[in-house]
């Protein structure tokens, strides 16, 4: 090899262009084949309705209150569910940082719902929280209530299902963010006179906040695409008629692919807006190292 070829290779490598780039090929192919192409295809389909102009499907979606309201319905379920997941994960993860006996068992118990899948969770919820489920029967026999409480086939059912499936994700993420914060920082704060609340709110929370924002985004996205539980334990024609149901109906009940694609694109845009707002707020926070110094 000539010296000039060597020099060129060296210059390229300094700009990050080297044979290791080939490692990115599988991921790139994957993203293009399974995300970019379907996404562009969806946009194209949504812009070619059977009747009307290019934007007719979107116009139809936004002028029909029955379709339009699915946005607020979905947000009304996904935002509180994501928030509760994150807020519930913080104290539990905070207590569980560090080592203690039985930590692995407890983590396993908390994380098992991930493996169940939404359908099994929904079945369980119906059996447990339904009008003749254990929960209601226990309360009735204890005399706490006279009538069974309705906890399924409504908003509550879907909400609980999203907590059960979303919490493990939030918990695992928050736990790993918390474990990344140097424990000597809180000890230093303690020797400086800070009580536990001051230690948590002035030291741990500010360092954890960027991680909480990321966790919120991920659990929000999971909750926003809720579909099986909205039908199985929800009220799919009323209070839990989420946007994915609207898209499903358009595609497989009315066979209107343009309308279905438009609903799906609207869904993506709403998610992007929420995520950009959260990440925008996150960028205002301190996002650097969470170590206390060298060593």
């Amino acid at each position, binding site marked *: 090899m000539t010296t000039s070829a060597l020099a060129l290779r060296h210059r390229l490598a300094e700009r990050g262009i080297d044979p290791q780039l080939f490692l990115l090929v599988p991921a790139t192919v994957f993203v293009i084949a399974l995300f970019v192409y379907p996404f562009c295809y969806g946009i194209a389909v949504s812009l070619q309705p059977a009747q009307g102009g290019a934007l007719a499907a979107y116009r139809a979606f936004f002028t029909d209150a029955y379709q339009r309201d699915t946005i607020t319905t979905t947000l009304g379920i996904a935002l509180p569910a994501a928030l509760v997941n994150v807020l519930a994960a913080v104290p539990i993860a905070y207590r569980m940082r560090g080592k203690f006996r039985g930590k692995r068992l407890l983590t396993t118990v908390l994380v098992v719902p991930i493996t169940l899948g939404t359908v099994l969770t929904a079945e369980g919820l119906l059996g447990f929280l339904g009008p003749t489920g254990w929960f209601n029967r226990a309360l009735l026999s204890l005399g706490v209530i006279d009538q069974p409480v309705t906890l399924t086939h409504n908003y509550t059912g879907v909400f609980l299902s999203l907590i059960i499936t979303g919490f493990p994700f939030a918990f695992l993420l928050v736990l790993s963010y918390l474990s990344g914060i140097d424990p000597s920082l809180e000890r*230093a704060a303690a020797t400086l*006179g800070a009580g536990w609340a001051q230690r948590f709110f002035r030291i741990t929370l500010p360092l954890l906040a960027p991680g909480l924002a990321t966790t919120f985004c991920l659990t929000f996205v999971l909750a926003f695409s809720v579909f099986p539980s909205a039908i199985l334990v929800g009220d799919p024609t009323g209070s839990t008629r989420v946007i994915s149901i609207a898209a499903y109906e358009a595609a497989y009940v009315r066979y209107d692919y343009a309308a279905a694609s438009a609903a799906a694109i609207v869904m993506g845009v709403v998610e992007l807006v929420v995520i950009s707002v959260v990440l925008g707020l996150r960028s205002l926070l301190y996002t650097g190292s969470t170590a206390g110094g060298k*060593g």
Partner: protein
Amino acid sequence: MTAFTTLRLDGVTRRFGGADALTGLDLEIRRGEFIALLGPSGCGKSTALNCLAGLLPLSDGSIWRDGTRLDTLPPERRGFGMVFQNYALFPHMSVRKNISFGLQMRGVPRAEARRRTDEAIRLVHLEEHAGKLPGQLSGGQQQRVAIARAVVVEPSLVLMDEPLSNLDAKLRLEMRTEIRRLHQNLGLTTVYVTHDQEEALSMADRLVVLRGGRVQQIGSPEEVHNRPANRHVADFLGFRNLLPGKAVSASSIKINGFGVRPSASFVGAIGVGDPVVAAIRPEDVEIGSGLEVTVDVAEYHGREIAAEVRTADGLTLHLRTSQRLAPGDKVEVTLPPSRLLVFPG
């Protein structure tokens, strides 16, 4: 500032699982004293410091500030300042906010807090860096922030956990002087943990030498340096040559290969005929007519050569000399009896 006359540790003990990390530490710290806890890693010195700070509960024993029992108080109510080995600076706060944190927590009025923070920043020469985050500072600067943060609250006791171990050699010497100067100017009672005997000897008023969780010796730097209480302390404080031998009378010993050495100093109860260990520092081994040895390794140390030599019997000795020795050289060495310390073997 909660001033005190004495701080007393009474049989302070800490066990981890079944293992004793620290056993029965008794110590009285007088106001204004600089105490060094010295020992190899795992000797219990950091455990002792954390017990003092309140970061580790005691398994047994108690800690008293004059008449007040301290070991039942959480760290935030002991009023001590602590400098951590990794500095533990709050990474999301500026230097100024890091330093003023303790004042805020103690509810010091804002104007006074600002004045004292400024003063502390000046004390450690960080005026130009007050607005920076810790991540933007060098190791030495971070160290100074950690010290300023601990002393700004005028604690009744400052605890330092190997604060210089992450610095390079030059900075370590500078900071050593700096810490000693701060101690002299502010009169802060200090407990300083280190594994570096030179650091402990040069900084402390009193040394506590620990080994395996137990106190081996408490004394002034001079006492510990010149008259270590046992062979382990001697070993740790620079007596690199520990030679096996036998006591032949009440004041003389026979070292294998060296013959009888009269008038050596005995430390501890030794009877005639007992096996002993004779300790001598490398710098006290003299070159002159005596036992012939062969140089194995010679290290250049500027004005001196540190050499590892071997006797004909295979006994290894360490010595320091201004002679230019090279591996393979043959010299004769003697062990001056006045420099020999004899411990039970």
